[in-house]
């Protein structure tokens, strides 16, 4: 039963190897990757069901006794994140059928993608800080591989920015891990909860916490460490940008949530205040910068940053409701944001450009595409009853409840500015008459393979918004579980 925990990591790895074998047959490679993604989705659903049944499940890999071995743990947060990863991965792999060129497949797109998924799931499921570092490295390596595949002109210097800043962040992460090990003598997260609380040198513990915050802050694109993101995401193929934009920063946010609810909870007046300030500045700076952009992918990239701010704000408030809100917002954001990148790719297909000035009258020519843009975009902007509305509402409500009035006001204001950006794209690309008077848009008819994943993700967004009540209940349980980690610790230390 607990062996189920290893499957979301192992399965994509196995299929990564299989897709390497099919590298030269791009159709087979795609089919293989889709099979792998669907199986992964199935396994993730099983894991979710198991977690719903037993609250927390843990597995000591290789049956090494606690705390010397390596543990995998799935609580509500971890299982939900794995499930969302699987959903997005499936959609992206299906979309990749029309988006990824034969040459990119030959340079190893599918193996990298599957390994990246394995690494992300590994990061969500690991119960050990050093393993978290290793999974982050695997994520980095595979994302580097995807970023430079096919060696396109103009992309490498962007990749250099991405690579260098991320390498710096892993160095800071490793330093923090070393210091933490020196302070506590353990790196198991459940073990750390007790031992970090007993550390006498709180100054050193807090600086270690801030060091890890910096490291994961770079990954999560927090202010002022986000510059690598807009510099590198806008040149990627749509499916890759969707997966990166949806997932990679959220793994950083996940790590922050995990560490700052489980390990570093004694000095909250320093650490969580720092998180709150960083979160607010991230929200505001991201959305303001996005307002000045005209390239769809750049607008979306800056909005990733702005919305990471919401999640970190939710974490910094540190109440069950705020954590539940952050979790709902994260799930909503992963799906909606990735979907917008995919739709942006389709808009590029149809109009031949990513630049808003070159687009127009898509509403007239592509009805379904308009719908596919409308739902995630206005969910992101926070229109009821779509999922983004609930996420934002809950975060603002949690801020008000714990008397962070300024944060609540700024969160509402940022929501308004998000709406401005989305309306800008909508009116420029969909309503405005096409600037090309000579012909109808150059693009082809959008095929089933391109629209199906996008519409499925739209459906997910709508359903998440409509059935918010059970989702909120689940998220509240997850929030409670994060704040009272007794069950987590028991499951890990009891040997599961």
């Amino acid at each position, binding site marked *: 039963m607990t062996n189920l925990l290893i499957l979301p990591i192992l399965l994509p790895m196995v299929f990564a190897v299989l897709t390497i074998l099919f590298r030269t047959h791009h159709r087979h490679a795609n089919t293989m990757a889709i099979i792998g993604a669907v199986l992964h989705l199935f396994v993730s659903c099983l894991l979710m069901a198991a977690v719903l049944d037993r609250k927390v499940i843990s597995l000591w890999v290789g049956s090494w006794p606690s705390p010397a071995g390596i543990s995998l743990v799935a609580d509500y947060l971890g299982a939900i994140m794995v499930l969302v990863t699987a959903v997005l991965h499936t959609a992206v792999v299906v979309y990749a059928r029309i988006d990824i060129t034969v040459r990119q497949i030959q340079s190893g797109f599918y193996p990298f993608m599957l390994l990246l998924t394995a690494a992300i799931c590994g990061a969500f499921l690991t119960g050990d800080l*050093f393993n978290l570092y290793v999974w982050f490295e695997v994520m980095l*390596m595979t994302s*580097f591989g995807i970023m430079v595949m096919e060696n396109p002109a103009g992309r490498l*210097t962007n990749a*250099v920015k991405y690579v260098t800043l991320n390498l710096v962040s892993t160095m800071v992460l490793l330093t923090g891990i070393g210091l933490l*090990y020196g302070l506590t003598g353990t790196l198991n997260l459940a073990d750390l909860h007790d031992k970090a609380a007993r550390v006498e040198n709180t100054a050193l513990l807090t600086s270690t916490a801030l060091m890890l915050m910096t490291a994961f802050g770079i990954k999560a694109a927090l202010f002022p460490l986000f510059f690598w993101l807009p510099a590198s995401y806008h040149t990627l193929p749509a499916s890759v940008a969707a997966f990166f934009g949806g997932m990679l920063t959220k793994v950083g946010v996940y790590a922050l949530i995990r560490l700052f609810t489980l390990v570093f909870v004694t000095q909250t007046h320093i650490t969580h205040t720092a998180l709150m300030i960083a979160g607010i500045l991230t929200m505001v700076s991201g959305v303001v910068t996005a307002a000045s952009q005209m*390239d769809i992918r750049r607008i979306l990239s800056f909005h990733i940053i702005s919305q990471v701010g919401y999640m970190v704000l939710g974490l910094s408030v540190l109440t069950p409701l705020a954590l539940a809100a952050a979790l709902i917002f994260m799930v909503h954001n992963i799906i909606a944001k990735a979907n917008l990148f995919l739709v942006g790719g389709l808009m590029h297909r149809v109009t031949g450009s990513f630049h808003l000035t070159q687009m127009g009258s898509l509403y007239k020519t592509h009805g379904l595409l308009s719908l596919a843009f409308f739902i995630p975009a206005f969910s992101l902007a926070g229109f009821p009853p779509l999922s983004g509305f609930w996420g934002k509402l809950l975060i603002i409500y949690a801020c008000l409840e714990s008397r962070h009035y300024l944060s609540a006001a700024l969160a509402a204001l940022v929501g308004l500015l998000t709406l401005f950006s989305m309306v800008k794209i909508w009116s420029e690309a969909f309503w405005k008459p096409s600037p090309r008077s000579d012909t109808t848009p150059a693009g082809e008819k959008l095929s089933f393979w391109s629209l199906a994943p996008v519409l499925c993700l739209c459906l997910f967004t709508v359903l998440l918004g409509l059935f918010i009540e059970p989702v909120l209940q689940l998220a509240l349980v997850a929030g409670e579980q994060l704040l009272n980690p007794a069950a987590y610790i028991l499951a890990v230390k009891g040997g599961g």
Partner: protein
Amino acid sequence: MEFLLALVVGLMFGSALFLMLSGILVRFVFGFALMGNAVNLLIFAAGRLTHVNPPLIDPDQTIPAASVANALPQALILTAIVIGFAMTIFLLVLLYRAYDQARTLDADLNSFLVEIPKTTGQHVSEKKEPA
């Protein structure tokens, strides 16, 4: 001993940061490698620095008899070294390729920063944008 090691680690971190901030990306690679070693030393120092026996257990026993060296930091460092190697090599190849495109590795120069327009002509609009 610990004081000396702390001094060395600090010195290595300082030099590594200096190299990484110089703007010439080849120096960044050296700084990265140096910082990797500094972190490894730090983890090593964190796992207790005493002159003790190797962590070997006699065949007829299940736990080591005397106090032995902590094996865990060494395992961690080994992992970190391997990953660091891979990252350094990737970084070198990437920089070599980037040099091919931009003809410079000075990150402050415009020829490095400005995006090279794609040859396909699809993204005409991107030329207008600053990188």
